[in-house]
């Protein structure tokens, strides 16, 4: 099926407050989608519905499987999640044990666990951290460890829920580059965020507000809609905002997503 995630007429209330009403969503297989919206727009609730942490009315279909009491565990095995504060999801005393956790839960045998952990360590370049305490690592390293522990089950979908709030722009770009590489290898990535700069990574954007999808589409197309962002309390990424204004003055003919490219376009 072309869509790896489908929501059909989903209704969901939490503590007497209706969050989603007749909500529909489609996320294409193999895409790298950014879901952006101000705080309280329902983004994190969406993630919880995708993994079956909350139960909603309506149809939720993940990787061709309809979400139900019987199937939610199977679905979870196909999704990796990186939560907001890595400190609150670390379970083990060493990074290696942390990575092994999900595999231990699935009762993989020791040899297989050892190999997978090594593989993931190499992929994310965190082999040197294996014997360290997750709590003692720097912010950027914690992000990579959380990411690794989500990837260890080789999921089809990776969801990041405002996971990069605590790290600076450089580390953020590093992590997003890793995600881009993984996406190129076939992983569907969903990055839930309120930081506009992260929109420059990925191929599609969904703008949410008040439990509704205000708009969605390919990255460049959405970034051209200045009013959309303004009306939903969001800012544009710097380079897009700048190129938008330069376009107005006739110095460039379209928005640009990369700073070097913009410099080259203005001074040909």
């Amino acid at each position, binding site marked *: 099926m072309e869509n790896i995630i489908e929501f059909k007429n989903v209704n969901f209330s939490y503590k007497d407050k209706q969050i989603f009403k007749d909500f529909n969503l489609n996320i294409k297989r193999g895409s790298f989608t950014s879901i952006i919206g101000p705080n309280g727009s329902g983004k994190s609730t969406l993630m919880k519905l995708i993994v079956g942490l909350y139960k909603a009315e309506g149809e939720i279909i993940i990787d061709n499987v309809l979400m139900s009491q019987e199937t939610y565990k199977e679905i979870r095995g196909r999704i990796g999640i990186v939560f907001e504060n890595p*400190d609150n999801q670390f379970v083990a005393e060493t990074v290696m044990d942390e990575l092994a956790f999900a595999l231990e*839960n699935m009762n993989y045998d*020791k040899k297989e*666990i050892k190999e997978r952990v090594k593989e993931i360590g190499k992929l994310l370049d965190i082999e040197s951290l294996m014997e360290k305490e997750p709590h003692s690592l720097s912010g950027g390293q914690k992000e990579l460890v959380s990411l690794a522990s989500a990837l260890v089950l080789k999921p089809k979908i990776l969801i990041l829920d405002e996971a990069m709030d605590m790290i600076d722009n450089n580390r953020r770009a590093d992590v997003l580059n890793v995600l881009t590489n993984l996406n190129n290898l076939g992983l569907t990535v969903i990055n839930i965020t309120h930081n506009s700069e992260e929109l420059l990574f990925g191929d599609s954007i969904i703008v949410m507000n008040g439990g509704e999808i205000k708009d969605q589409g390919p990255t460049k197309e959405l970034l051209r809609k200045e009013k959309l962002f303004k009306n939903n309390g969001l800012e544009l990424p710097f380079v897009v905002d700048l190129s938008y204004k330069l376009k107005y003055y006739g110095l460039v003919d379209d928005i640009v997503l990369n700073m070097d490219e913009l410099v080259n376009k203005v001074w040909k």
Partner: protein
Amino acid sequence: MLNNIMIGKYYPVRSYVHLMNPLSKIICTMTFVGMCLFANSMLMNLCLFALAILMIMNSHIPVKYFFKTIKSLRFLLLFTFILNLILDVYFETTLIMMSRLILLVLYTSILTLTTPPSEITYGLEKFLSPLKVFHIPVNRMALSISIALRFIPTVLDEANKILKSQACRGIDYNSSKIKDKLVAIKALIVPMFILTIKRADTLADAMEVRLFSIYNKRTNFRQNPWGVYDSYMVFIHVSLLVILIVRSVMI
């Protein structure tokens, strides 16, 4: 800041004892406890002291930490001494009682000073695994304990941060008024409580999403190696225990 070094007083340094498998350390400690119970002469106690001193030297931990542990016992030792004096017990018996106390505390200190809490949990889990025959969920209990332990530094950091925040707002921790003290306690406990519950929620979600279930069988990935030194130590301890038991039975 206040880390493993406070809980269990783990002292990180390289030594043979530090590198021993936690299971063998627990076996040795348990056997030593057994030996203390069967050593009913001053001579035997002195031999046990010799063994303890040997292990202490092997652990490369500054002796002052051990003196601290004994120092914390001083009231209990004094109490024992006086009580036995009043009850008119043989002097030798009194000495044996006091030396048993000291030996037990010394040896368990070696364990806690050379083994980080997570390893102790691992060792205990393996040590108690025969109990699984009686359907006691040893693995689950050990996992709960190890998760709780891993959060100790996080919780301490948080408590620190809250104490500092409240101090910045004017809480006087040094005030002698009871009302002030109560407010100070409330200002620490309420936020900690809420943070802990929030964290438990998030952690439970994170674990569930990684397919944790108490009903499933879990692999236990962590495998500490068992070395020659481990077999050697266990052999010595168990043999000594056997010898002591035989001797005390024969006398």
